[in-house]
């Protein structure tokens, strides 16, 4: 352990491993089925709340003027290979750690009543998942990152495969195989980089220039892995299936955090380590981003399943993120980061909205609903707020990211900005169409006549998300200030890297 970080204790390791400790504790619980379930729920909730409380230290102590890694920890692990257990967060990752720690208790609370079988294992899976997510965002070593990155798959695979819907096995295998297939190429790329640099320390790797020809292939390898995770068109089809079969909380964490892993990968690896290749591939990425926005928005329009619709909308929103990343300017990059955060909150909330009615009526078929506004006015308001946030109404979280990306994309081309923002129109179409069919109209079915409005527990689940959505929309500077310095440094080093080979006259 080297030095003492700003928190005064190894906070990132604590955040990473504490959920696992909570999980181990849950495993030791014995007794009657109902007692075990209840204890497991409370233990998981308290663990995740404590982890969240500790993570707030990051918020308070993070130095926003420092573009580099902070709260660093380092233990030697395999020194002969240059591999170490290195942790640290910079402006790009710190808020995603917080997003993960904030969403986990919400997920646990959301599964309170809806999960009734194997509760102990379910809670354990969620805590393991939290460990993996936090570790992934906090890792500052390539090998450590890779382990967490792949490790996330396991609990998620189980959550879908064990507690999912009728086609859960198909969905979970599809999810697993798609995301794993890409990862193998990433491992190969990783080996190649390690072979050249002799270390896996990210901070060092970011400073190590790679030959342009090699960058080309590495970019493709990373792309294979990250594009599936984002997911980008045309490797997005695992997502709707996974969402549809996953339990509500599984969808929440999948949309809220796991979908950010791909884009985070582009931020963490592709952009800083492969600047020339990133530049070279930018038009290609723009094309895929625009196709994602328009194609998946249209597909969302045709959906009859609530979760599938929102899943497709996620693909479209992540298309905007991809466009933002490859503009390589401050507005685009910050917009992409903000869009990732806001999508993490808003899409999570939308899946929770679906969960509310699913818990009551046990169907996600849009046609089965209608007229809920009569019986569930509070739910109608909450759903409207998140619908509008998803549509990108100014004053909500959704607007800021989308608009910043628009501004950033405009610096590249008017057409890119126009087409990339086409989700403004199509998004309004599919979300309002969904809202109209579910909330508006008259109640025609008997089981809907007795449907109850939000319970206090559900209000507690939504309240923090509502607060965040408005806060991020009205005063986004609280969040953008975290990544300001890091993004600024990224843009500068990117520009410098592009200029360098031209000066040296090295042909690729």
């Amino acid at each position, binding site marked *: 352990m080297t030095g003492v970080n700003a928190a005064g204790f190894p906070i990132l390791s604590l955040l990473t491993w504490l959920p696992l400790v909570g999980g181990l504790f849950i495993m030791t619980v014995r007794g009657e089925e109902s007692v075990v379930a209840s204890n497991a729920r409370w233990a998981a909730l308290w663990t995740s709340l404590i982890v969240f409380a500790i993570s707030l230290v990051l918020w308070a102590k993070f130095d926003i003027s420092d573009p580099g890694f902070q709260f660093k920890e380092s233990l030697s692990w395999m020194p002969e290979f240059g591999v170490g257990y290195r942790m640290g967060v910079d402006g790009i990752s710190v808020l995603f750690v917080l997003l993960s720690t904030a969403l986990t208790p919400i997920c646990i609370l959301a599964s309170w009543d809806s999960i009734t079988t194997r509760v102990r294992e379910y809670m354990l899976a969620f805590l393991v998942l939290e460990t993996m997510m936090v570790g992934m965002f906090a890792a500052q070593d390539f090998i450590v990152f890779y382990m967490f990155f792949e490790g996330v798959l396991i609990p998620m695979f189980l959550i879908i495969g064990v507690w999912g819907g009728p086609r859960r096995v198909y969905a979970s295998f*599809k999810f697993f*195989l*798609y995301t794993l297939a890409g990862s193998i190429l990433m491992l*190969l790329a990783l080996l*190649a980089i390690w072979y050249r640099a002799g270390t896996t320390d990210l901070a060092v790797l970011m400073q190590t220039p790679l*030959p342009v*020809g*090699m960058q080309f*292939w590495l970019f493709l390898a990373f792309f294979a892995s990250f594009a599936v995770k984002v997911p980008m068109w*045309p*490797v997005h*089809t695992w997502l709707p299936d996974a969402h549809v079969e996953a339990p509500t909380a599984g969808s929440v964490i999948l949309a809220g955090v796991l979908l950010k892993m791909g884009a985070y990968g582009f931020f963490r690896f592709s952009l800083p380590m492969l600047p020339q290749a990133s530049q070279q591939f930018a038009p290609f990425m723009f094309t895929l981003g625009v196709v994602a926005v328009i*194609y998946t928005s*249209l*597909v*969302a*329009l*045709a959906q009859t399943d609530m979760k599938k619709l929102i899943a497709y909308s996620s693909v479209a929103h992540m298309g905007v993120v991809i466009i933002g990343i490859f503009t390589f300017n*401050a*507005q685009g990059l*910050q917009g992409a980061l903000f869009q990732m955060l806001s999508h993490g909150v808003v899409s999570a909330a939308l899946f929770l909205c679906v969960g509310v009615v699913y818990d009551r009526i046990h169907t996600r078929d849009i046609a089965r609903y209608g*007229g809920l*506004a*009569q019986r569930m*006015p509070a739910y109608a*308001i909450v759903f*409207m707020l998140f619908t*509008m946030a998803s549509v990108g*109404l*100014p*004053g909500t979280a959704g607007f800021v990211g989308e*608009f*910043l990306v*628009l*501004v950033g*994309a*405009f*610096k590249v081309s*008017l057409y890119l*900005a*126009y087409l990339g*923002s086409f989700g*403004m*129109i199509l998004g*309004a*179409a599919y979300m*309002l*169409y969904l809202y*109209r069919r579910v909330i*508006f*109209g*008259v109640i025609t079915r008997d089981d809907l006549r007795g449907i109850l409005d939000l319970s206090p527990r559900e209000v507690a689940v939504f309240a923090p998300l509502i607060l965040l959505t408005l806060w991020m929309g*009205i*005063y*986004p*500077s609280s969040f*953008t*200030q975290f990544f*300001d310095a890091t993004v*600024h440094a990224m843009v500068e080093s990117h520009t410098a890297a592009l200029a360098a080979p031209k000066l040296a006259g090295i042909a690729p």
Partner: protein
Amino acid sequence: MLYAVAVFAPLLGALTAGLFGPYIGDKASQAVTILLMVVAAICGTLSFLPFLDGEGLPGTVSLGTWMQVEGFHVEWALRYDTLSAVMVAMVTFIATLIHIYSVGYMSHDATIPRFFGYLSLFTFAMLMLVTADNLVQLFFGWEGVGLASYLLIGYWYDRPSACRAAMKAFIVNRVGDLFFAVGIALVFLLFGSVEFPEIFARVHEHVGDSYHVLGGTWHALEVIGVLLFLGAAGKSAQLGLHTWLPDAMEGPTPVSALIHAATMVTAGVFLMARMSPILEYAPHALGFIAFMGASTCLFAATIGCVQNDIKRIIAYSTCSQLGYMFIAAGVGAYQASIFHLFTHAFFKALLFLGAGSVIHAMSDEQDIRHMGGIWRKIPVTYAVMWVGSLALAGIPIFAGYYSKDAILEAAFARGNAVGFYGFLCGTVAAFLTAFYSWRLLILTFHGTSRATPEKLAHVHESPAVMLGPLVVLALGAVAAGFAFEGSFIGEGWLEFWRGSIVNAADNTVMHDMHHIPGIIGLLPTLVGLLGIALAYVMYVARPELPGRVAAAVPRVYDFVLNKWYFDELYDFIFVRPAVWLARTLWQVGDARMIDGIPNGIAALTTDSSAQVVRIQTGSIAVYAFTMLIGLVLLVSIFLLFR
């Protein structure tokens, strides 16, 4: 300070009614929202008065930072100048009257707090729009208005038609908004800022800048002008993006009054005036704006002549009047366009609320073919409808006369082709306006009644809470013209506007409009009187004429009756292809093609697993060979890295 109160009081009202309405009850919700609206109206008027005396000091009320990303800086701030103050005073005043009127009109509604919450939210969004000190905050109000209108048009959400109209309004608006957003991005790219003071101060530096788009090189300011106009066209229902406005009639009548008079549709006109410092340097964009305005003006007037729904007729008249305002903006007489916006707010709110009173009296009948002969039973409503129609038709001493004449004079005085086109369309539209207004008055109130006996027996004058606002608005529709003409467009205009609207040095239209041939100035009034005469002939003297005209030119009649088939056209070229594409992409693109490959591989693997068994021969040589292939692949990849 007063100014900030005027803007945020409606928000407080909206939140109180919206969140606590069910707990505090209908009466309390109404009381709170109306009280706060009255406060807002008082503060708004007090903020406006200094400018009327020429003593107002422009300034800004800063509220904090919104966005701050590397030079992209957006503030929350309220801009206080003549243009904003006029709008704030007008919006709060009209909205207050509409709130009060709604107490009577919505008295039988089941969710009164929700309605008043929405109304106040609508007002707040519009106030944020008109007081914005930068383009992005303006966009906030712009979208907020869109949301509130969506909620209010779809207020009766159990009606499928209302839900459809609400969605249509939001989505059509969004088409325009996308252009607006892209326009904001271009402004930022050019000026490095979206704050008004900074942009306006540096327009002259960018006059020569060019921008490359659509295969040509254009003046950047022209591109901005066109993009902003396309945004404005969505909100202000200009030709092409107007289709949502008539359908918006699905909302309760007070909502229509709010949308058409004070909030929403006037936003586009306001944007043109606000951006006058840029538009003045974009002559081609201005020409385009005037052309579109003139076309809308005439187009909507033709449709207004044949509609049978009382609210639809008035809706098309709004569309047409907005056309006038864009003509004025397009010829550089922004002051005249804001003046018309101002007077129009009074008489259009009056007409809608009056129509609401008629509908209320007629037990929710809206078709003027089923009305008639009721003027003695509802004399106050009848009288105010006359006042509103006189103002709309631009008959002297009524409000519309001053502002509409000013626009036509300015269009004529501009002296270019598009100005003349505007003048021509505007004059013909003035004739049609008078015609359809009196057609409406005669068919609604006069002749023998065509209503069912039960409905006729029920006809009754509205309660005082509805008539009060009507009378106040009627006074405005009479007086707003001559009382404010001097300040807005008369001799005092320079001191009044104080640079909040900019006219370029070579734009002397504000001066020239007062020096045109006398006959040109008289023409609008003359054609207006002619229109009234024609309506009299067709619906009183020779009532069989309209049917014969329609029968004589059935194609023309159907074309106009069906609103020039815009809805059908859009359905055919946008909606259907989108729906078809959505299904195809999903079921063919995603399910068969994209999923087809991995699923196919999976199937292939299953099918060939029998073969695979055979490959597992146990022979070390085969294994070694396979490993070799793998190694070759790996090495070649590594070689390619170099």
